[in-house]
């Protein structure tokens, strides 16, 4: 990035006109990007509009583009229908535990696979990678049975337990650690560090991009996870938001789409805000995962 800036300030006259030409044609780029951004943003804006509309306004033909009143009632109704706050904290607890758990376990395992040698390494790695492509629904019943044996039904541990072991996370961290310069570790070894110290003091500090990547993906998946928590939890207060929202959409009587939109908005908001605030880190993290 600094390179680009340096180059443009040192441009000789001949290429300065080329630069002017480039900037001019940026107008077209802006147009395309603006159209693209609108397409990306529209559903969110529409959701905002729907969440303050009444059922009649939502279903009207021709469409009611500017809502006449602000139906804040939709939002209060969400709290009447769901123990929203409790579910929010459950979502937070589950997401936090799962993410931290994965960060710890996957970085440890990933490092070992990347840099250490031990018997059966190949076999163990192959075993772990073999499950990468299986969709989660397939595991539903067996995982339920195991969690039940552990006595962790209808609890946060139950929801989190299978989620902290991740083949994908291990793979991601392994790939990352492979790119860390070997010299760092060799230097540490020469200094007399054992593998743990090497990991903790030398390698981990430079692992930020990899850890960020993993954290982002885990947070996203965890926040929106539906089927597994649904099957594991019974009491509405122990359910994460995703499950609570499914409750709303499965309402036997009629429920205004506006209320559902309000609920969806409130459920998505924390993550949206988090990502907008942390976007720099997020972008770095995702960019990294593609570079490996």
């Amino acid at each position, binding site marked *: 990035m600094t390179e680009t800036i340096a180059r443009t300030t040192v441009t000789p006259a001949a290429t300065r006109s080329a630069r002017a030409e480039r900037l001019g044609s940026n107008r077209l780029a802006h147009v395309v990007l603006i159209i693209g951004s609108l397409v990306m943003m529209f559903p969110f804006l529409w959701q905002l509009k729907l969440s303050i509309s009444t059922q009649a306004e939502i279903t009207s033909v021709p469409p009611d583009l500017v809502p006449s009143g602000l139906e804040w009632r939709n939002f209060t109704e969400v709290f009447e229908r769901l123990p929203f706050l409790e579910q929010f904290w459950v979502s937070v607890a589950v997401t936090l535990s799962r993410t931290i758990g994965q960060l710890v376990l996957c970085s440890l395992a990933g490092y070992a696979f990347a840099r250490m040698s031990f018997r059966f390494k190949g076999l163990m790695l192959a075993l772990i990678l073999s499950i990468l492509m299986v969709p989660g629904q397939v595991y539903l019943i067996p995982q339920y049975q195991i969690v039940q044996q552990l006595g962790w039904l209808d609890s946060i541990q139950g929801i989190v337990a299978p989620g902290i072991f991740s083949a994908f996370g291990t793979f991601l961290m392994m790939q990352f650690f492979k790119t860390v310069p070997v010299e760092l570790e060799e230097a540490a070894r020469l200094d007399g560090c054992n593998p*743990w110290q090497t990991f903790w003091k030398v390698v981990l500090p430079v692992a930020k991009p990899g850890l960020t990547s993993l954290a982002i993906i885990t947070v996203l998946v965890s926040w929106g996870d539906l089927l597994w928590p649904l099957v594991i939890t019974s009491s509405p207060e122990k359910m994460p938001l995703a499950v609570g*929202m499914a409750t709303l959409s499965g309402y036997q009587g009629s429920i205004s789409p506006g209320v559902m939109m309000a609920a969806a908005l409130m459920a998505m908001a924390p993550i949206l805000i988090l990502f907008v605030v942390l976007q720099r880190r997020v972008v770095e993290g995702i960019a990294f995962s593609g570079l490996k």
Partner: protein
Amino acid sequence: MSSARRSPDGRWPWLFVLPTFFGVLVFYFWPLLKTVYDSFTDTGPFGGSTWVGAANYSELIADTEVYRAIVNTVVYTAIVLLGIPLAVLFASLLNRPGLRFAMVYRTLFFLPYVAMPTAISLVWRIIYNGEYGILNQSLGVLGIDGPRWISTEWFALVAVALLGLWMSIGFNMIVLSAGLKGIPGELYEAASLDGAGRAQQFRSITVPLLTPSIFFLSVITTIAGFQLFDQLFALLGPENPVMSKTQSLVFLFYSAAFDTNERGYAAAVAVLILAVVGLLTLFQFRLQRRWVTYD
């Protein structure tokens, strides 16, 4: 075995690896083995299985629903893969030197990826509604009579795929942006000095050097495409009359396991999914030698 051959790291590797290994073994690998085993049985909804050999598989081969589900999943994945060239376009526009508001664009493009899939599917359900949805109403203004998106065969599949596409473009774009930044500026300078125009530079420098990122995206998009379930379930709803024509392979699994209570057959479907995705991934990895340039 002499101790010199022993791992110089001593017991440490085990400490690092065992928690994850054990966890994956218990929670994933074992269930996977059990599923493969179940695929050769006729298991009732509450357990109680009898060995039936390859009967589930022969039923699978004869079942038209399976072929339709494969086709649906392939079409879905293909449409979502279109998000990659689109993202290449957007990423290269975004990376223009001196482009203002780049950060803003990037955030806006990225938001769909961050939305909760089940929540945002509900929003799209309203947008797609055949009668009062804003999509059809807008098309109506242009004089086009929009189809009933989520209750008509094939249109429903396209509707779900467009949702998948919309959600993934932001992610693709960021990966590709990083890839673009990794291309040394000198290459472009040298090309301009040689008289190569913008388009030519794009074709001969940008695209080839982006192939590693493109490859990465196509592999994960394919795997994710074959796991389609949540958005389909949320957008169409299980009581939808075109669901049986629009279902993905994973949905077929779910339906066999929980709706029609054929756990053995469902397990066979699961094994099929695993085999298909495995083959596709292998195929992509083999093919990468042909078109992916690593420097």
